[in-house]
């Protein structure tokens, strides 16, 4: 078996960077520990360049396990960009928090990113499993990286227990599919399932088990219990990383397994996703209304957003390739927009929290008077998450509605529209606090350049993307397997 190193270049490069950051950090004197940030940042930039270099190519290596196509490359770009934004936010956060070791923090993020790059190319159950674990294990450590903070410990424990339980269930499902088809390669599984009619019960059970594993990663109901606690207890940049990059990775795995491996069984899994999507978004939105803390609000809103992205899978078809292409297009488009608006919202919360030490929504009162730019940026992210024009979020929701209606999922579209209305309520409540209410404290919120840059870039992208949605559209259109 020959290995195509060209296809593996971004992953190999990132492995070197991660090991390099870890090793160099060991030998740095204590006052120079901050060096880990520029090293990691440049390393991810180099990886991004290597990924862009592969754009448009079709390479297969490692016996069909590892595939580089447009789908994989576009997701790798999303992961790298999200990681860069999170790094910029982390730098400001880590400089304030003396308890967090810089070297370990960035090393763990880089290894988690490595898992994400790998899962985008994995076309084999073994590779998908290993990649998913490579994402999760460093993430468990990141959630608990503030060792002396008991809340951070608890965040890590809850995340870990849910994570390993769902992994074990998912593995059981994978072993059943291996038993049914004698293969772990997704294409071989698809071929092995074609025309089989004697396997309904086992396949149903195995699909359920698989959905548990991915449902945990994308924080779908009923596997979302860890999300608010972990986001609240973990450092905020880690919460941003989990809610954007890790969730996107879950969707990548889900697409590959469901469309490439189990496309034949679409009639079986379609209703499951319709139900899970609806329940997830309704639960997320209803609970978000009652939240008083900004990170928990964003956590529940990210659960609801996962629901919006799962619903399109509820109209998938076993035979209609054009419809499936449209489904993948709509979710990828949503993920692209989501990466910027969600990271931006978390970055703004970091900027506010690190200066004031306050995380309650009522503390945001009068923010417009204190720091107009931060308030406007935060409002833009919240408007975008709510789907209000002119920010890119409206277009992402519009694409999903269009897919649902084309796929005869009118009921799903109506429920999603209702949910969007419920969601406006809590997003706009925060905006009202910032712009209308007054506060006694009038000190401006100062922030370092890296953090301001991350917020600025995210805000510009979602504003420009709202007026010119084709920028996202063209990228998303390329990301499909059919």
């Amino acid at each position: 078996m020959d290995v195509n190193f060209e296809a593996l270049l971004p992953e190999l490069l990132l492995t070197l960077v991660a090991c390099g950051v870890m090793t160099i950090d060991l030998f740095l004197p204590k006052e120079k520990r901050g060096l880990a940030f520029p090293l990691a940042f440049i390393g991810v930039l180099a990886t991004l360049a290597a990924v862009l270099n592969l754009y448009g190519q079709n390479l297969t290596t490692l016996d069909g396990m590892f595939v580089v196509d447009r789908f994989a490359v576009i997701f790798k770009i999303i992961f790298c960009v999200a990681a860069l934004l999170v790094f910029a936010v982390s730098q400001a956060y880590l400089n304030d928090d003396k308890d967090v070791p810089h070297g370990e923090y960035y090393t763990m993020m880089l290894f988690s990113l490595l898992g994400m790059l790998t899962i985008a190319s994995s076309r084999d159950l073994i590779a998908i499993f290993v990649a998913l674990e490579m994402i999760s294990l460093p993430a468990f450590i990141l959630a608990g990286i503030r060792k002396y903070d008991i809340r951070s410990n608890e965040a890590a424990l809850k995340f870990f227990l849910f994570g390993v339980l769902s992994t074990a269930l998912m593995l059981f499902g994978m072993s059943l599919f291996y038993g049914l088809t004698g293969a772990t390669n997704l294409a071989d599984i698809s071929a092995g399932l074609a025309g089989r009619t004697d396997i309904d019960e086992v396949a149903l059970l195995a699909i359920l088990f698989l959905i548990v594993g991915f449902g945990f990663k994308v924080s779908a109901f009923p596997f979302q219990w860890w999300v608010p606690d972990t986001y609240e207890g973990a450092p905020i940049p880690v919460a941003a990383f989990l809610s954007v990059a890790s969730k996107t990775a879950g969707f990548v795995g889900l697409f590959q397994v469901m469309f490439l491996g189990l496309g034949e069984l679409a009639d079986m899994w379609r209703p499951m996703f319709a139900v899970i999507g609806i329940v997830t978004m309704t639960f997320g939105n209803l609970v978000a209304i009652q939240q008083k803390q900004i990170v928990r609000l964003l956590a529940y809103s990210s659960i609801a957003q996962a629901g919006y992205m799962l619903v399109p899978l509820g109209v998938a078809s076993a035979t209609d390739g054009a419809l499936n292409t449209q489904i993948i297009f709509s979710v990828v488009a949503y993920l692209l927009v989501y990466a910027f608006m969600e990271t931006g919202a978390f970055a703004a919360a970091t900027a506010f929290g690190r200066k004031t030490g306050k995380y309650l929504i009522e503390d945001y009162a009068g923010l417009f008077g204190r720091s107009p730019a931060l308030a406007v940026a935060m409002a833009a992210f919240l408007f975008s998450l709510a789907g209000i024009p002119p920010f890119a979020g409206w277009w992402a929701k519009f694409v999903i509605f269009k897919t649902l209606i084309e796929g005869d999922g009118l009921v799903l579209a109506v429920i999603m529209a209702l949910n969007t209305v419920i969601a406006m309520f809590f997003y706009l409540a925060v905006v009202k606090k910032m712009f209308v209410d007054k506060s006694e404290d009038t000190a401006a919120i100062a922030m370092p350049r890296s953090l301001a840059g991350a917020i600025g870039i995210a805000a510009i992208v979602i504003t420009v993307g709202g007026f010119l949605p084709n920028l996202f559209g063209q990228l998303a259109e390329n990301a499909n397997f059919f």
Partner: protein
Amino acid sequence: MPLNWVLVLTTFLFCVGVYGVLARRNAVIVLMSIEIMLNAVNLNLIAFNGALEGDRLIGQVFALFVIAIAAAELGVGLAIVLLIYRNSFTVSLDEVNLLKW
């Protein structure tokens, strides 16, 4: 040995593991239960590999990966439990309840 017998055994083992995770409150026993679940998966993979009568050993290779990753997982898990024990002197999941709603 018929494949069905093995599958009954692995399903039983798996259910024991799920029960342990859901019912026990001691974090270390929960970790052990998760190991039982993963071992049920390994047995499953190896049994299927034997029954499929191919010359490819995909199932056994998969099981090796599962074993390796389970070890890494347990390392991280025990580290987290140890941290909790250091900071709050408990390994009971019911007493780890600062964050809610």
